[in-house]
């Protein structure tokens, strides 16, 4: 467990507390109700598991499945302790209930790569207690001593006789549920750690997996929302008279952020939306373009009177910097990025009387339900969220903005509504990965020991923008809305003046031993809304840190691998991953003509990942041939999924490293679709080899940690191939 992840965890907990104060009272559920609808005759020991008389085992998945494999992972845990084959379990997405709260987040949500880590014990405990209850009931019903009964493969076996679990559910339902039943030990595991096809793969290979956009309800109308070209502008007036006359159009509705055109079909709504004329006011963001943002960051970086906030101060801070043998300084920059999930945002809402059903893929069922309450004025107990698979999440889904529009349109029109965002809507109305400009400074001894590590970082934060969303939708509904909205805006001054947003500094100082560290962050925010983007602060900070480490090694004249290992002696997990990747990729061994290796090592979300990119440069083109990765993520539930997640992080990271850039002109996002926000395609995808460090430690994150080392590994190889040290993302050779 490293410092960074601890900080982030604590922070999320406290943010949960600040943001919500709540959670008590977020739903009308009491401790006695379950999170699911009861099935007559079924054994219902907790909110996770139902076992029916006909041996059906149902698991209510508390985390969102967005590709990261948590459906498979948590179902495997249930199967392990319940002693059933995971493939027989009927897995359903859990709706809102306090039993499904993420234990680390304090709210029902999926993010921060913590779903396995946070639920590894509680989910197993729920299943182990369920298994014990079945066993107790079987013992009584069969009049046998409990220890003669064996649970295996979904059956109770005694004296060579096999019984289905269903035989005992009636009796089990009348008996007390055991607590703290012993969990299986790692030596006993026959599901955890096993390589096995993913459980959701059949549905996803036959077009039958249901995503939010696939929701169908009776009398469903489609809505398209026309939003401001500059995010945050207020609508002054609009003229929809032409749109209203178009084929299929039934309503036009004014929203707080735009105008919705409602029609019988998506295409009719989309066409008519183009005919709506809107007049917007000019928000502050309109004063900014990418050039002026970069210039402003640079001025602030150089303006030492702006001290910013302390993120880390250890030893003598930066006081001894100038006394070192080698003093190295370099500025690095990372741009704003969009998520570009394959499934554009969407939300379907069915209203009946004072009840509201919401269908979507979301990383927070709780925030989605809260959005229906806050924006749609529904009573909390009248809102039901029906979660679906997510066509990619990456931190984008679960802020409530998708639900906010749909509930208001449904309420104002009295119709069932599906809002489908176009790719252009999605790309220009994101919560972007913030841009950042940093000055890295280090003092290195003659022997190659980093003595001082100093960072001055300038840019926007994430949490203030997220709180602006979350406070509104998570605050208890008895609070006055004006007060809640005021509260939601407090994040901005809070993180600018008083508390350094940990996600801004995540990963920029923790991995190396340097006895003296000083990290400060100066908040400068043009106002473009920001959010969680796969690996959050690590996504840019690992690029800054690991590129700079190569610069230090090269200045000290020491091999980049040896330099890292010598300076991470307090970081055994990252050391193991780094040694492993070096051995597997053949660091220092000859490569094909014109090919070069670049190395990067980075810890995030509890896991340590090291990567070596094999790169060549052809003119101005960077070609990434192969990436070798090693991850130490503690105990592994399904090794195939760990490898896939690391590979996926590499591909997502490579898109960002080679192409990713959101730019603004007068506050307007210039990218709109995949022609000007390109995504890595198959022909450019490198070969990837992922190795997993054998470990019996508690499981840690895998969804995000594969991403951060990629950009610096490529940049470090590009330096060797071209002699150009690329300090700005995306990587562009001159």
């Amino acid at each position, binding site marked *: 467990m490293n410092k960074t992840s601890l900080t982030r965890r604590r922070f999320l907990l406290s943010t949960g507390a600040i943001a919500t104060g709540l959670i008590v009272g977020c739903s009308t559920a009491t401790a006695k109700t379950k999170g699911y609808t009861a099935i007559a005759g079924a054994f219902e020991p907790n909110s996770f598991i139902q076992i029916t008389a006909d041996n059906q085992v149902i698991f209510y998945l508390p985390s969102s499945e*967005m*590709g990261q*494999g948590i459906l498979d992972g948590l179902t495997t845990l249930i199967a392990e302790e319940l002693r059933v084959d995971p493939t027989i379990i009927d897995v359903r997405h859990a709706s809102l209930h306090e039993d499904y709260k993420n234990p680390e987040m304090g709210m029902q949500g999926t993010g921060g790569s913590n779903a396995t880590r946070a639920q590894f014990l509680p989910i197993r405990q729920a299943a182990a207690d369920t298994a014990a209850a079945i066993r107790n009931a079987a013992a009584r019903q069969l009049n046998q001593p409990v220890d003669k009964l064996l649970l295996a493969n979904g059956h109770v076996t005694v004296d060579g006789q096999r019984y289905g679990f269903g035989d005992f559910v009636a009796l089990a339902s009348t008996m007390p549920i055991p607590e703290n039943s012993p969990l299986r030990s790692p030596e006993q595991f026959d599901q955890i750690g096993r390589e096995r*096809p*993913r459980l*959701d*793969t*059949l*549905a*996803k*290979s*036959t*077009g*039958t*997996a*249901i*995503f939010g*956009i*696939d929701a*169908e309800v009776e009398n469903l109308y*489609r809505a398209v929302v026309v939003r401001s070209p500059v995010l945050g502008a207020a609508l002054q007036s609009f003229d929809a008279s032409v749109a209203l006359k178009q*084929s*299929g159009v039934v309503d036009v509705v004014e929203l707080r952020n735009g105008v919705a055109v409602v029609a019988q*079909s*998506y*295409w009719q709504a989309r*066409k008519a939306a183009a005919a709506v004329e809107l007049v917007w006011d000019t928000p502050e963001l309109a004063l900014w373009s990418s050039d002026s943002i970069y210039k402003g960051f640079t001025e602030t970086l150089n303006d030492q009177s702006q001290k910013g906030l302390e993120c880390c101060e250890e030893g003598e801070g930066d006081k001894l910097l100038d006394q070192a043998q080698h003093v190295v300084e370099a500025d690095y920059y990372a741009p704003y990025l969009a998520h*570009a*999930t*394959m*499934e*554009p945002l969407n939300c379907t809402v069915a209203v009946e009387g004072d009840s509201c059903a919401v269908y979507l893929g979301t990383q927070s069922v709780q925030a989605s339900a809260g959005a229906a309450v806050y924006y749609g004025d529904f009573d909390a107990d009248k809102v039901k969220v029906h979660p679906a*698979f*997510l*066509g*990619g999440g*990456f931190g984008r889904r679960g802020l409530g903005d998708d639900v906010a529009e749909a509930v208001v349109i449904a309420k104002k029109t009295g119709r069932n509504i599906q809002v*489908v965002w*176009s*790719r*252009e809507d999605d790309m220009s109305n994101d919560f972007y990965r913030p841009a950042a400009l940093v000055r890295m400074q280090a003092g290195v001894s003659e022997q190659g020991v980093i003595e001082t590590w100093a960072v001055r970082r300038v840019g926007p934060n994430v949490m203030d923008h997220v709180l602006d969303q979350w406070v509104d939708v998570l605050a208890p509904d008895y609070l006055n809305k004006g007060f809640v909205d005021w509260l939601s805006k407090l994040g901005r001054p809070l993180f600018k003046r008083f508390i350094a947003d940990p996600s801004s500094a995540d990963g920029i100082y923790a991995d190396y031993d340097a006895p003296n560290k000083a990290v400060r962050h100066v908040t400068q925010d043009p106002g473009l809304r920001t959010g969680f983007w796969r690996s959050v602060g690590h996504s840019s900070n690992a690029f800054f840190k690991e590129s700079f480490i190569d610069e230090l090694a090269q200045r000290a004249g020491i091999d980049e691998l040896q330099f890292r290992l010598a300076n991470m002696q307090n970081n055994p997990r990252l050391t193991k991953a780094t040694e492993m990747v070096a051995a597997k990729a053949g660091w220092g061994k000859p490569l094909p003509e014109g090919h070069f290796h670049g190395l990067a090592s980075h810890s995030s979300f509890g896991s340590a990942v090291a990567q070596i990119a094999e790169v060549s440069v052809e003119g101005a083109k960077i070609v990434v041939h192969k990436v070798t990765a090693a991850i130490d993520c503690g105990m592994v539930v399904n090794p*195939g*999924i760990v490898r*896939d*997640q690391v*590979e*996926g992080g*590499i*591909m*997502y990271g490579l898109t960002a490293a080679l192409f990713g850039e959101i730019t603004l002109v007068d506050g307007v996002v210039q990218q709109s*679709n*995949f*022609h000007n926000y390109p*995504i890595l*395609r*198959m*022909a450019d*995808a490198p*070969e*990837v080899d992922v190795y997993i460090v054998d470990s019996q430690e508690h499981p840690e994150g895998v969804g995000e940690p594969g991403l951060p080392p990629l950009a610096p590994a490529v940049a470090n190889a590009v330096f060797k191939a071209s002699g150009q040290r690329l300090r700005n993302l995306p990587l562009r050779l001159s």
Partner: protein
Amino acid sequence: MINFQLNNSPVEVDLDPDTPLLWVVRDHFKLKGSKFGCGMGLCGACTMHVNGEAVRTCILPVSAVQGAVITSIEGLGQADNLHPLQQAWVEQSVAQCGYCQSGQLMSASALLSKNPNPSNADIEAAMNGNICRCGTYSKIKSAIKSAAQAMRAPVSMVETFDPANVEVKQ
């Protein structure tokens, strides 16, 4: 009125003729397997077969498929009757979020119907129009190869019919 074949059944629609085929199949015929990703033919999530060719249906007006034979992912294979590509997809756990995979499978099946033994370059050329944001490209490539092999295998076991060897009875 526009008539075409959809997954081996004749269908008829009376809709705005410029409505893209994707939305007709998804929202009119309620076959939700084909996905909307970009609306510009750039990502391939909406890929279906039109007369055997892989086509981006988010930019294909329904009026253009009058009389055409359309296959969507629902017509490629079902859980109890998987296409060899779907079989390989399942065995190799290709999908992560899964949203792009219907389109990937339709592009891949169009490729294999014309080229039973594609090279890496053939696969890349045929699949480069399909974006996967989760980064499953290497598994897609490997699943296409194993499916291609599986589809070729039974053929090689059948004795080749050569008319020259047939004795013509007088």
